[in-house]
């Protein structure tokens, strides 16, 4: 038991990230409301980024902004995950914008945010 708790403590960030990832995933997949889906997507993505960032952290080290002549890699945390996450954040904000624009268009036409309702209406709809 103690062993398990130690493990849990060692990977606390990963555990939190996984819980958030699953919450976001289920919201994105399950929730009927489009706005909620979008928020779920954002939570899923940020949870993945949290996991990635936590991989780069090393205790008692400095942030990866090199100070003076001190270029000893053993003094800084890992800069690669931060770079990847930076890229990822841009991607998720772009996708969020597209999804929101699509939501506005759908709402203008169907006056609903519920995907199932919209789907039913679209099937009933005549012609265009």
């Amino acid at each position, binding site marked *: 038991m103690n062993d398990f708790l130690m493990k849990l403590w060692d990977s606390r960030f990963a555990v939190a990230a996984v819980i958030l990832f699953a919450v976001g995933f289920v919201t994105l997949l399950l929730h009927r409301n489009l706005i909620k889906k979008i928020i779920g997507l954002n939570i899923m993505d940020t949870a993945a980024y949290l*996991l990635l960032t936590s991989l780069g952290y090393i205790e008692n080290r400095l942030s990866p902004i090199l100070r003076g002549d001190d270029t000893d890699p053993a003094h800084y945390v890992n800069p690669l995950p931060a770079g990847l996450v930076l890229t990822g954040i841009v991607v998720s904000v772009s996708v969020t914008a597209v999804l929101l624009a699509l939501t506005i268009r759908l709402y203008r036409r169907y006056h609903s945010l519920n995907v199932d309702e919209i789907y039913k209406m679209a099937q009933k709809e005549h012609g265009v």
Partner: protein
Amino acid sequence: MEFTVNLPLFAAALCLICSAVSAVLPEKAARRLCLALCGLVAIAFGLLLAYGLSSDAATTYRMGHYPHPWGNELFFGTLEPLLLCVFATVMLLCLLGGGSHLENDLEQGKRRYYYVMCELVLSSLIALCCTNDVFTGYVFIEISTVASCGLLMIRQLGRTTLASIRYLIFSLIGSGLFLLGLILLYAVTGHLLMPDLSRAIGTLWESGQYRSVLLTSICLVTVGLAVKGGLFPFHFWMPDTYGYATPASGGILSGLVSKGYIFFLLRVIFRVFGTEVFYKSGVSNVLFVLGAIGVIVGSVSAARETDVARMIAYSSASQIGYIFMGFGLSPQLGVLASVFHILTHAITKPPLFLSAAQIARIAGGRDRKLWLGAGHKNRLAGLTFTACALSMIGIPLTMGFVSKYRFGLAAFDNPKLIVPTLIVLAVSTILNTWYFMRVVIRLYTPASGPDGPRVRMREQRPFAVAAIAFLCMNIGFGVAAKPVVTLIEHGLILLKEAL
């Protein structure tokens, strides 16, 4: 000749630059630029293919000053140039053949953005097929997702907007899973470049360390890309997506975009996990089962559909099932059949969408009941539809026959799966014949009413050019299958060995 290896970089960068420039050009110029770009890319990869064949070795191309554990890289042997050459040609022909529909379906003033999206899709296809770095793959997957969503929703109907939001949501689920898989891989290996990852994974697998993390990440990456490609339980966005988009987009989305993800998955299997680890992990069996179910379910759904465009879209779902089934069969003949089927599908599906739209225009709708005798009214479109339907069924001399034959051969590569594979092949061929022939027979049944106006060749010249080119490619690859198969075989060996 040495300069040829720079061509993928130039092609990708040119696509990105053109996509930016297209947004400010007049619409006609944007269209010409996009067509010219597709042609150029096709020629560039044709040259690269010739270079690859003459040098008989794969090339690792360093992007920038830093070699592989540090910087980005491209990797290409003979398979990638072949696929990209075909993809760029198909895109060119789709845009050419669907041109008249584009003018009807797209709002004036926004047409140039269509070409922006096409160029972005092409750039992401190049990057996905050539990259040697998994994270670059992730970024370009996202470009491809957003751009293909743009191709879909630019026809501004209620249905397409709805279809694009569903498509986008499923794509994002897929890329989220893929990203998580990458992160787990990074956590246990510390690498992102394919050769280093593969080496690290090999060592870890042998030592048995982090076994569960490796297995989970294999599952996540495969499932993520399979969701994006449209494997069975995740295929139901397909009919709306492909069926309601403007025909050129339907062709591009079903023929090329999903193939980009699938080919990237193939590269990940071969160059990151390694075929041994992947086929030992058991994920391949899941792929086989889902693929086989997908083939049957897709065919059954297609047979129940009366709207021809949606029927073709469901048939895409079943073709994708074939491809994943091949992945599940075996890393040699199975994958070979799958790659050939990628080509088949890319060359056969777009003309089906184009000719269906062309026939629907003369017949007054896409419901097959309206299509009575329409084959006489527009002979070329009828002929194209019929020929491509025959190719989908698998009549000799067409590409479809070769890929079915290769799947049959591949079945004997995996003794446990001979019977199920053959049953699936037989059932789906029967269903294919049933639903395609039903439409074709209707096309050529003389209508009882008065003859309507006929569409002549010169009224649809761009479509005629595209259709004839597609048919020539189809028959050409079908007749000369032997060298193509050898080429793919060789390319797969290069892909695996040049780590």
